[in-house]
């Protein structure tokens, strides 16, 4: 029952899925650049990165959650609630930077609440977060009475759509979170325990690791990423609304799974998550650029998820799963 941290079983490296996705991404890029002269223009590439940024940030948090064999369905609602919190602070005259920081931290608190319920009360993550999903959305609606909050200071929109050289703050934030995620997963005890929690929680507990602490903080991290996404979304659209991020969790979870992180826990891939988010953003962008109805978008994304997950499962074949 001991836990192995070597890369094969702990599953940090599982490059096949990632390579496969990367291949799909390249084929798509080549195809799109042949069919549309606009695709490879810098402004369009910047658009793709900008659109992917929101998903990327939240997907990194979700990657850790899913690697513990958990799930966080409340992230979409957290985006709305933190956005509204920031909106109210700004309306009350708080400085922009302080409001933004407090908003992101509020996301962390909402995540921590998930984590405490899951770890201390041992309620299934699915149950807890489907509850808090409604709870946070309900709070957003009650607070705003269903109406959007708008009219923030112009400087506030910098986080969402300002220029930073040739890129913008959301892209920089997404890049930083990716680096942070990769670092945490690879080089810290915290990241290793996330995988181990998904692999064999009981074993981890018996060797004296404070399982509850690590579990809770992983949900805190997911909440923080959702808070950051809430900040970016509110700032980009210059509106905080209770419907923001509706069903966003399904996009995020789809990206994480597509990227090769295993729902059964114990396997995580930051690079896979990143490639998957970019792939989904390229598909969405490409369909608009080519003026194809996005009915096909749903279809295409569904096919890609099923095919790539099937292929990697088949590849894994008889590999013994460590939680057995």
């Amino acid at each position: 029952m001991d836990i192995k941290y070597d890369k094969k079983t702990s599953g940090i490296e599982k490059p096949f899925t990632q390579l496969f996705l990367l291949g799909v991404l390249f084929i798509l890029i080549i195809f799109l650049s042949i069919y549309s002269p606009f695709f490879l223009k810098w402004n369009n590439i910047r658009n793709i990165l900008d659109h992917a940024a929101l998903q990327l940030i939240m997907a990194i948090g979700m990657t850790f959650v899913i690697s513990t064999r958990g799930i966080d369905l409340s992230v979409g609602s957290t985006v709305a609630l933190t956005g509204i919190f920031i909106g109210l602070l700004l309306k009350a005259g708080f400085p922009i930077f302080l409001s933004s920081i407090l908003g992101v931290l509020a996301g962390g608190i909402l995540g921590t609440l998930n984590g405490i319920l899951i770890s201390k009360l041992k309620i299934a993550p699915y149950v807890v977060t489907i509850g808090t999903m409604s709870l946070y959305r309900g709070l957003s609606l009650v607070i705003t009475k269903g109406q959007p909050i708008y009219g923030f200071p112009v400087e506030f929109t910098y986080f969402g759509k300002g220029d930073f050289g040739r890129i913008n703050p959301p892209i920089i934030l997404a890049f930083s979170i990716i680096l942070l995620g990769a670092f945490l997963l690879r080089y810290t005890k915290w990241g290793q325990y996330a995988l181990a929690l998904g692999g064999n929680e009981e074993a981890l507990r018996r060797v004296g690791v404070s399982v509850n602490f690590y579990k809770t903080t992983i949900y805190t991290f997911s909440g923080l990423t959702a808070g950051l996404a809430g900040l970016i979304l509110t700032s980009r659209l210059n509106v905080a609304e209770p419907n923001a991020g509706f069903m966003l969790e399904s996009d995020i979870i789809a990206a994480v799974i597509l990227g090769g992180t295993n729902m059964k826990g114990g396997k995580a891939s930051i690079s896979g998550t990143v490639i998957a988010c970019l792939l989904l953003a390229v598909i969405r962008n490409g369909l608009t650029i080519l003026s194809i109805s996005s009915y096909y978008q749903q279809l295409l994304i569904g096919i890609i998820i099923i095919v790539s997950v099937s292929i990697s499962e088949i590849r894994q074949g008889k590999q013994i799963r460590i939680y057995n």
Partner: protein
Amino acid sequence: MNFKKILSLLLILILSTTLLAGCNSGEVNKEMGKDNAEEEPQEKSSKMTEMENALMSQLEPMPEINKGEKIGVLVISLTNPYWVNMKECYERAGEELGIDVEVLAAPTEGDTTVQLETLDGMIVKDYDAIIFSPIDRNNLIPGIIRANQAGVPVINLGPGVDEEGLKEQGGFLDGRITIDFENQGKMAAEDMLKQMPEGGKVAIIQGIPGAGQSEGRTKGAKEVFENAEGVELVSIQPADWDRNKAYNITMDLIQAHPDLKGIFACNDVMALAAVEALETANEREGVIIYGVDFTDEAQEAIIADRLDGSVTYSSRAYSKAGLLLALKIAQGQEVNEAVYSPLVIVNKENIDEFHGWE
């Protein structure tokens, strides 16, 4: 183990209470609405009186009022500002007409079965008539049939039901009052073209594909664009009524069509997202953007010269007409024709006439 079960139950209980609190947010709104009503001057804009008269003339002969009838209203969802506003309008009109009005809703815009269950619950509550706005064309049909059997008059306001399907199953509507969605798209597109005499490329941003409002408005606008000379409709993209999706689509559209001259969005939320996106990209100049609904936010944006126009009608007159129609039917009059609420274009030129619009 039992401890865990009890805790889970407790948690579920707490969550559902909060959820119910979410549903009851209307209560808070009611108070808020009253406060606002007291603060606002009671004078109506000239446009509003004009439209109210046009709508009311369709309802002659008027029913008797102040008879204390009980009317139940089932709307789509109070998570949508539109229906929150309609609820307030219904309640205010109810007071004006001296009748009891109760407004209920599904918890979210997608909850088709809960909306049906709510209707079933309403049928046994002894209303003199029920006004309903279904989430989709079919979800309320079984409830309508049960209302028919119980002898409760049913009036369909706004989004329609599949009347053929209803008839086949032996049900019927006692009255219908609605907005012509196709005409909304048509009017917006026509007014847009007036502002772009040289024509050029235009695009449409849809709501959820398949939703009545979205399909109707798209169809109306599409026909106008396709039949106009020098106008090229380059793209129709669904953004699911979502602000962020509409923002992203607009960003992508101007990459593929840098010479885009016009965007018609199927509601104001998406139109405002398009405005936001074009402003960010420094491409706002020379593009005409229209939405539908004329929300408070859109009103401010038109005044600030950010949004070019919107299509609307008076929710106040609309909800009042709905209640009057219900009263007529409850008092035994027969109304065979559908009643259509008149529509009006709001743009930079006439925005001043819309002060205090509701």
